[in-house]
């Protein structure tokens, strides 16, 4: 088994992603620049230009074409990568369904960003949540290190014959994409070649063995193909776990499906995703010093959603507070992850108060003070046995 030796580098998450693309020995990269993703692809083109990565870089005129090219490349059996954010992800939207419908193991990084209008180039998770129904496996990283490791894991997951679905690796636009922090990256680029061997098992276009892709499915056929995706998503859950554990065995870093800390026996557990978890962690440490029994958890795998693990988590605590960085409009509980959690508890018949808070929309600042104040508000509601009827839009000005 090839073990990696590591070098510790100061990298932004964007650069960590680019490094992971190089270390995954990707064959084709097609992308269109968009803030805050652009430096991912800039760095990859440097790797290609200086010979560190042997790959084809396809410069396209839009994200729609970027995904189209990735689909074409993957359909030929190439290991394909693209990166985007926000409006770019939206422009790709119809192709996202095609990539997953054709069962092509493309990996894409998304520097999560708000959507226009009004124009915001800043971070939140509206873009990622908007594509939750496209049948892409979705991992959300909370550090540059995890983003690096997750891209490599993503190819193992996507290319697994039980899955054959594309994977998004998402992370905070700006708050992570542009923040430098220490990251261990492999000293050698071939450290992962046994972990993600190149052996395309998915259907590929090959004149020696002709087949038709993208045919029409009439009403008596279409449903079965969608059900195949339902099953692949279910399978993905186990495969994500295996890929992470195997990575842990080989490379001594693993993350699990949900990261949790101090949940057992806590009065309240905070649940969130992405980079804000770090801020939450330090805030909760301060609150614990004052004797508060608070747990915290981070959803690392958003699709397939880990309903069972969430239900297990809920059983260990008395109430859940979910911090969402996106709004699903027109419903009372408007935090996308809060809604998933509530339905997970319902399915298992678990009665817990779930408090949904909307924070950090369009990169509205969230500090330790906000977390402490949210905790105060939750304690108040718990004291009055109040069930939450509507998400709380934290910090919005009247």
């Amino acid at each position, binding site marked *: 088994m090839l073990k990696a030796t590591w070098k510790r580098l100061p990298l932004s998450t964007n650069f960590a992603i680019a490094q992971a693309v190089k270390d995954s020995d990707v064959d084709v990269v097609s992308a269109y620049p968009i803030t805050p993703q652009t430096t991912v692809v800039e760095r990859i083109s440097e790797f290609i230009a200086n010979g560190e990565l042997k790959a084809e870089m396809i410069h396209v005129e839009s994200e729609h074409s970027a995904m189209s090219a990735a689909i074409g490349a993957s359909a030929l059996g190439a290991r394909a990568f693209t990166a985007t954010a926000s409006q770019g992800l939206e422009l790709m939207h119809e192709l996202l369904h095609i990539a997953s419908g054709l069962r092509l193991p493309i990996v894409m990084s998304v520097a999560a960003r708000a959507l226009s209008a009004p124009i915001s180039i800043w971070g939140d998770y509206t873009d990622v949540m908007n594509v939750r129904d496209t049948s892409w496996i979705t991992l959300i990283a909370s550090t540059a290190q995890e983003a690096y490791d997750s891209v490599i894991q993503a190819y193992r997951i996507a290319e697994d014959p039980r899955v054959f679905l594309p994977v998004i690796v998402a992370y905070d636009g700006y708050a992570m994409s542009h923040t*430098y922090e220490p990251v261990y990256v492999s000293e050698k680029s071939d450290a992962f070649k046994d972990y993600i061997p190149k052996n395309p098992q998915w259907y590929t276009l090959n004149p020696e063995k002709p087949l038709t892709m993208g045919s029409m499915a009439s009403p008596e056929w279409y449903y079965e193909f969608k059900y195949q995706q339902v099953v692949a998503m279910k399978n993905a859950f186990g495969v994500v776990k295996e890929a992470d554990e195997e990575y842990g065995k080989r490379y001594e870093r693993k993350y699990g499906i949900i990261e949790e800390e101090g949940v057992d026996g806590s009065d309240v557990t905070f649940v969130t995703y992405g980079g804000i978890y770090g801020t939450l962690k330090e805030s909760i440490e301060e609150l614990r010093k004052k004797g508060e029994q608070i747990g915290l958890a981070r959803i690392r795998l958003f699709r397939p959603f880990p309903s069972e693990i969430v239900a297990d988590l809920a059983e260990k605590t008395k109430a859940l507070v979910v911090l969402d960085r996106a709004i699903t409009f027109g419903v009372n509980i408007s935090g996308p992850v809060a809604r998933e959690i509530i339905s997970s508890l319902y399915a298992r018949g678990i009665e817990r108060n779930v408090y949904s808070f909307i924070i950090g929309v369009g990169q509205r600042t969230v500090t330790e003070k906000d977390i402490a104040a949210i905790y105060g508000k939750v304690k108040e509601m718990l004291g009055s046995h109040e069930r939450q009827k509507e998400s709380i839009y934290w910090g919005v000005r009247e």
Partner: protein
Amino acid sequence: MQERYEIRWHGRGGQGAVTAGVLVAEAAILDGKYAQAYPEFGAERRGAPVKAYTKVSEKPIYSRSPIINPDVVVVLDPSINKSIYLDGLKEGGMVIINTSKSNEEVKSLIGRSDVKIAVVDATHIALDVLKSAIVNTAMVGALVKVLPLATLDSLEKALHETFNKKIADLNYQIVKASYEKVKTIN
């Protein structure tokens, strides 16, 4: 030395405040410390006041919340209004400022008796070496002298990672010059 230092950089677009913040973090990380550096997430326009942030710590840094109460503010451009750079500066914190004014003038400008003040004429150091008033690396040299957050060796490495050899060498010359010339005045 405390466990974690939080530094806020104040410059104008084009002076390299963001790069300065990143260089210190890079060097600290190469020294084996933990660090985080990020720009103010706003529009970057030449001439507009720019903020950048650096956290350096002996232990892992998890929080990504912006620095509201910095331990140190580094002022690349003395014409920036002091209400901007002194905002939230910790009691007993430090101001490192690029200036050619006299110590007394600087003291009365800042007007806070609790903060330590260090001065360096970064503009002239940069002009001497680069023939250009890009003062960021001079301020980096001043910072690491006053507060040993990163070694000069690691800074040299970080400079070579960021720039081509010629520019990196010139900037390292600036770092060392400023490291020698910076003075604490109270």
